[in-house]
């Protein structure tokens, strides 16, 4: 493995309330290499979401260091963090977070808007990504007209449109049924096989089973870090699921 893509050193995150403070992360040190498919697991309150937000540059640590692809993220300004989120990271959220009353292709274009991609380049790139997730013919549908699985695929197209180095997925299957979850995980596995680094937060063991490395969180510490020799294949699971259903 070459230089790790993600390096965190002694990350501490404290939330200060009025009368007390909560420590969500207590000295988190991790390395994630380029091309890994990592699932972060843990019960609620374990700090996995906080960790995810820090990785996604949506929040900054109270102390400790974080570098992403060589950039010392913990030292960057708000605008520089916005640029990193824009160009290096693709987000997939549990509740999709698509703009309502805005067509799929326009949703996918959104990150390009903030990286000053010329208007004429935006549309073809967005349409290309939609085709990759199998939604070419739904490009002009609004989110309300799409199923949950389709909405999440639009969100993945949006995450990919600016060629990021990292996909962060926060409970991406939380709002989906089993079959659609398999479809979605299949898509993420497919991306990972293409070289994309994927970090996934979930509390479901069978979702984590698709990852090649599973990290367990508890009370702000890493309690478990295992590589999976042979992760489950979502495509195979989907075919079996359909067989049983039929």
């Amino acid at each position, binding site marked *: 493995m070459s230089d790790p893509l993600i390096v965190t050193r002694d990350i501490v995150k404290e939330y200060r309330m009025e009368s007390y403070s909560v420590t969500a992360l207590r000295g988190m040190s991790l390395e994630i290499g380029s091309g890994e498919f990592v699932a972060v697991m843990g019960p609620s309150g374990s700090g996995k979401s906080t960790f995810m*937000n820090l990785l*996604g540059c*949506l*929040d900054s640590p109270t102390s400790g260091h974080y570098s992403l692809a060589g950039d010392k993220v913990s030292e960057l300004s*708000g*605008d520089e963090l*916005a*640029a990193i*989120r*824009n*160009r290096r990271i693709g*987000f997939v*959220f549990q509740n999709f*977070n698509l*703009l309502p*009353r*805005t067509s799929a292709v326009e949703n996918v274009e*959104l*990150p390009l*808007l*903030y*990286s*000053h991609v010329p*208007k004429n380049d935006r549309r073809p790139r967005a349409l290309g990504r939609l085709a990759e997730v199998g939604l070419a013919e739904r490009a002009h549908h609004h989110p309300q007209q799409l199923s949950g699985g389709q909405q999440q695929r639009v969100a993945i197209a*949006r995450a990919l449109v*600016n060629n990021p180095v990292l996909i962060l997925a926060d409970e991406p299957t939380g709002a989906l049924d089993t079959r659609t979850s398999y479809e979605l995980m299949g898509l993420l596995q497919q991306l990972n096989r293409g070289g994309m680094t994927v970090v996934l937060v979930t509390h479901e063991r069978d979702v984590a089973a698709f990852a090649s490395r599973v990290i367990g969180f508890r009370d702000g510490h890493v309690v478990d870090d295992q590589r999976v020799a042979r992760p489950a294949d979502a495509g195979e699971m989907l075919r079996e699921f359909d067989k049983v259903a039929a």
Partner: protein
Amino acid sequence: MTWLASIRIALRALRVNKLRSTLTMLGIIIGVAAVITMIAVGAGAQARVEEQIKGLGTNLIILFPGSVTAGGVRMGAGSRSSLTEDDAYAIQREIPRVQAAAPTLRGTGQVVAGSNNWSTVFYGVTPEYFEARNWAVATGKMFDAADLTGSGKVALLGETVARSLFGDADPIGQVIRIRKVPFTVIGTLEPKGQNLMGQDQDDVVLMPISTARNRVLGGTQAKQRSVGSVSIKVRDGEDMKEVEDQMRSLLRQRHRIQAGQEDDFSLRNLSEVLAAREESSRIMTLLLAAIASVSLLVGGIGIMNIMLVSVTERTREIGLRMAVGARARDILSQFLVEAVTLALIGGLLGIMLGLGGSFAIAQLADWRVELRPDAVLLAVSFAAAIGVFFGFYPARKASRLLPIEALRYE
């Protein structure tokens, strides 16, 4: 992100909630329309006053003889016969800044034409009078030099007199009698309307000054060549005050008045009265505009209110935009552009309503209105400024949200 893209995003956001956007705009629409209409009405009033001033001769100074004091009773301006025709010619000759100095004799009398008669004022004038008073002959012709030297019995009728004596018939060539002296009507005067005091300026007969003196008024005035007044028109752009001073010293010299003695004449400058009147109508316009601006301000507060609601409602959208790479200033400009777009569209609709309103007032109330491009420009830039001013606070509030908290907002 380009401004064009920002405007497109703003328009989309405004379209999503059409009713709310329209109601918010309504405040600006009414405000801008009110400002435009009020300024149009005010400017119309002002233009009317200005026109009246022009009708009287903007640069007009009227010279009257001084007052007579008899046994301690002062008789008032014009009671003395200290002013002569020659004074008028001297002013014309020696003060280059004077365009025209017109000596005038005034008299009243019954004018008879056939079976009709009419009591009116007649003036004996020289051709300079027409220049000094900005008056023109409507039909027929002016009296000529021969009439002036030979005391020709010719008269020009004001519109009121012509109508009273001849109705719709053509008065030219007809004979009228003034104080039993027969005159031939050679022309009629352009209608001039009322003066500022409400007097009908068309209720008048003009004749050569020599005719008035020698054939109608007669008496002692004839010997002294004295005149009732002199109308003096100052050239455009000259300082009235300086011309008055020059005239005063010229007349004091001609009348051999010692230093320390009172003038035996008086000068009246109508434009001062009118300037005061113009000033008051200008203040009226400003007042109307100020009142109308209050409604524009209220409209601006409406925008702020809606933008604050909108920022709260769209907190998750803001969080998402930040997550995919929007910087704080992108969010700021997005909401600012939205507020300004709201204000500008409202402003444009307000202009249309304001133009329509001004037109309606002109038609229905029969008021004079004057649409001024600068007022329209002012109202629109004021609307845009309101958009920026009242949009800034909500936009800044949006841009300062933390991405993670905005994303989690329920």
